């Protein structure tokens, strides 16, 4: 069993004030293996990785690398031992050059050899097919390229263990394929790769083994062949699950035609973010969605609808009446709510309490001079904490200490509290655990059933198919098609996105 073993973790414990993040967790990685680390948010994946990379020090347990006990005190330690990590968020320095980002912090040389460094970096970038110049400032590269640079750095370090912590969430399909190729190459070279992701498809595409964590405890380690998806999901959630089918039946009810005036209608809408003017409408109780590859402009469209980016042309009608939506507050006053794509940057207000985060939008709509009383605010917050089953110690807890899924629920609560007629959800399920994903999808259908209009955007097409009755397809910042009814199939969407045949 332990032949070829590269990394062995035994009985790892780690706790934070009030939380037992890891309890008696074991983990094995062999040479030339791609090993998926799975679990819901808050299951302990991040903590385990941070223990491995020296960001946290473990409370108890052994780490064995190449059969020898090691202590990892800092990220430098980890690097020196051959454990490299690529994180979901870019952890490079934007003000330095690409080459420096690949080489800094790696050697004990005193002198910086610019020429040698540029040459080495260019070679590496070329061999990995990464479109970046070694001398360019990192900030001038796209996020995807920055991610690739981070991987190039890890590869260049001849690491034994490569940890990829959700590296694919900001990459498009092509880039993901490139990354997978890279991973397989490394696997050939005998590198052990720990792969953390929420995309089940990707797990089944590249991984050899899966380790599942739940509530800080080890559930088990399985060869990929022995663990079908449904079982994986149920292991992660800790219960058998047939929610998926439920959702489908619910959706059928909302799938109907009507000729009423749209709740929201836009004509020739365009914003400074470079989307081509587009037309759009949504009716009462309808769930529709924008789909397309990452960067196709689907988020920019909904941002334009909400006035989040500067709107530069187009006319908007709300319930048939022409209105002006220039800023978010205009949209909010017109009963539109928007859950943004990037939860951390655009959604939560980290240091504020759950309560303040929930009431924020309602408060802003009420106005500067009409603050909610503490009692009212508490009542609202508790109502939604119960309704959406937000797991938090109290309404006073800072939102940043909640898990991703629960943070997302708070943001949903924030917008539901404003009782919008039209709710826009941009990637509400990104980076959150499967259980919450299902909860949110169910909620969408429930709200639609109650008469709310909803636009739902997700990178996972099956989620869209499950919830939406109409899909607007985008390519290169342009609307290229609209699908409904029977057209709503995986293959049809793919072909529309790809633009293989004549469009409507």
């Amino acid at each position, binding site marked *: 069993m332990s032949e070829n073993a590269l990394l062995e973790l035994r009985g790892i414990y780690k706790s934070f004030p009030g939380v037992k993040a890891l309890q008696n967790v074991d983990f094995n990685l062999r040479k030339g293996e791609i090993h998926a680390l799975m679990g819901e948010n808050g299951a302990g994946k991040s903590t385990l990785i941070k223990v491995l990379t020296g960001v946290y020090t473990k409370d108890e347990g052994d780490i064995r690398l190449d059969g020898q006990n090691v202590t990892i005190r800092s990220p430098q330690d980890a690097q020196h031992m051959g454990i490299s990590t690529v994180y979901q968020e870019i952890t490079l320095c934007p003000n330095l050059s690409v080459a420096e980002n690949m080489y800094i912090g790696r050697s004990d040389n005193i002198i910086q050899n610019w020429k040698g460094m540029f040459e080495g970096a260019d070679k590496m970038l070329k061999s990995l097919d990464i479109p970046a110049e070694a001398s360019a400032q990192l900030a001038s590269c796209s996020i995807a390229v920055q991610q690739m640079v981070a991987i190039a750095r890890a590869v260049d370090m001849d690491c034994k263990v490569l940890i990829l912590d959700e590296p694919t969430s900001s990459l498009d399909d092509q880039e993901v394929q490139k990354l997978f190729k890279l991973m397989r190459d490394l696997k050939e070279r005998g590198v052990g790769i720990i792969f953390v992701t929420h995309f089940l498809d990707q797990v089944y595409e590249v991984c050899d083994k899966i380790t599942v964590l739940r509530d800080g405890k080890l559930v088990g380690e399985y060869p990929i062949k022995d663990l079908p998806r449904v079982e994986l999901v149920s292991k992660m959630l800790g219960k058998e699950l047939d929610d998926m089918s439920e959702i489908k039946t619910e959706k059928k009810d909302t799938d109907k035609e009507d000729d009423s005036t749209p709740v929201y209608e836009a004509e020739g809408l365009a914003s*400074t973010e*470079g989307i081509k003017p587009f037309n759009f409408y949504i009716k009462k109780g309808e769930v529709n969605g924008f789909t397309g590859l990452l960067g196709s402009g689907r988020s920019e469209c909904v941002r334009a609808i909400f006035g989040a980016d*500067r709107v530069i*042309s187009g006319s908007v009608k709300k319930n048939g009446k022409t209105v002006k939506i220039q800023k978010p507050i205009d949209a909010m006053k017109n009963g539109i709510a928007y859950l943004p794509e990037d939860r951390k940057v655009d959604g939560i207000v980290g240091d504020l309490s759950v309560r303040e985060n929930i009431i924020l939008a309602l408060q802003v709509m009420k106005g500067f001079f009409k603050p909610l009383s503490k009692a009212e605010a508490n009542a609202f917050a508790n109502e939604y904490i119960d309704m959406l089953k937000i797991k938090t110690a109290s309404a006073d807890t800072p939102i940043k200490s909640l898990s991703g899924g629960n943070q997302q629920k708070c943001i949903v609560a924030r917008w539901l509290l404003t009782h919008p007629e039209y709710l826009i959800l941009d990637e509400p399920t990104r980076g959150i655990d499967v259980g919450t994903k299902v909860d949110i999808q169910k909620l969408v259908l429930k709200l639609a059933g109650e008469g709310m209009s909803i636009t739902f955007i997700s990178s996972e097409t099956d989620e869209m198919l499950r919830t939406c009755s109409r899909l607007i397809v985008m390519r290169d910042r342009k609307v290229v098609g609209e699908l409904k009814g029977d057209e709503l199939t995986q293959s049809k969407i793919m072909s529309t996105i790809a633009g293989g045949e004549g469009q409507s």
Partner: protein
Amino acid sequence: MIVKNHKPKKIIELIMLLLISGVVLCGCTGSAGNNKEGTDAKNIKREKSSASQPVTIGLSQIGSESDWRMASTESVKAAFSSGAGYNLIFDDAQQKQENQLKAIREFIDQGVDYIILDPIVETGWDSVLSEAKEAGIPVIVYDRRVDVADDSLYACWIGSDFYLEGKRTCMWLSDFFSDRGIDHNINIINIQGTMGATAQIGRSKAIEDAVYHSRNWRLLAQESGEYTTAKGKEVMKKLLAKYGENIDVVYVENDNMAYGVIDAIRESGYVTGADIDKGEILVVSFDATHNGLQLTLDGAIAVDTECNPLYGPRLAEMVEMMEAGEDIEKETYIEEDQFSAVGYIASVNVEDTEYPVTYLTSKIIDERAY
């Protein structure tokens, strides 16, 4: 299309930029408007260039910390006006020798004809003055002195005899006490000026000497009030808290500090006045500024010895003499007066010279130039 639509934001940025540079520019044009002398001087320079070059003077002033200093600055500025054929470059050193050194070097670099210097402290001038000498620019020192190894480094000095001022004040006090028949112990507090300044050295020495030679005068404390009202008040408050009614006389080394000292005395519940036997605190001060004299008239300051700030005419006289190639005296003292509204003493005698004491009236205050 998109580019076009970008414009509004850019235009706003541009407008903001213009606005800000506008504000700055306004400041600059404002300067031209306010500082008419400057522009006039340039015009005259152009007109006169064929006939006679204006004489360029570099004036390095200590600062603008007190009424006295400002009256002095105004006087010099008026004397070297462009109308009189001068081009004055004025520099305010804001109480730092460093800045004065810098200013003098700038004057040398600009090739001025004369440098006029009111030095903030006495030492530390050797190198910069020798640079001026090297460059062939005569330096006139006024008010405070410079202490240099080689006194050919400056052309001449004109100023007050601060020791004499102090002596006159002490003599007035001594005459006053004997007049009143007071011969018990007199407790004195000295609120000094900025340490190391010529005036502080002279005036402090005078009171120290007087105390040393006196039978019943005692110096309770000496502390610097740095010539400012605020600091004077702060120091006095502290000393009042410490010595309370034991204080008979406060010897304040300038009027600005005297305002603060009198404020402090009043706020601490004491009374200023000449009747020290009734527990009043007697304040003597120097400079005889407008406000100082007002307080003297009210009796809050018993005697205010003048320190004449009106150097302008005398300095202009000297420059003219040097232009004409005449010899001038190395050291000159400026004439000074002494004012009191207490009125017992008509004159004081210091080292066999009688110095009159002017009985102060509001008429005198109104007629004075500052």
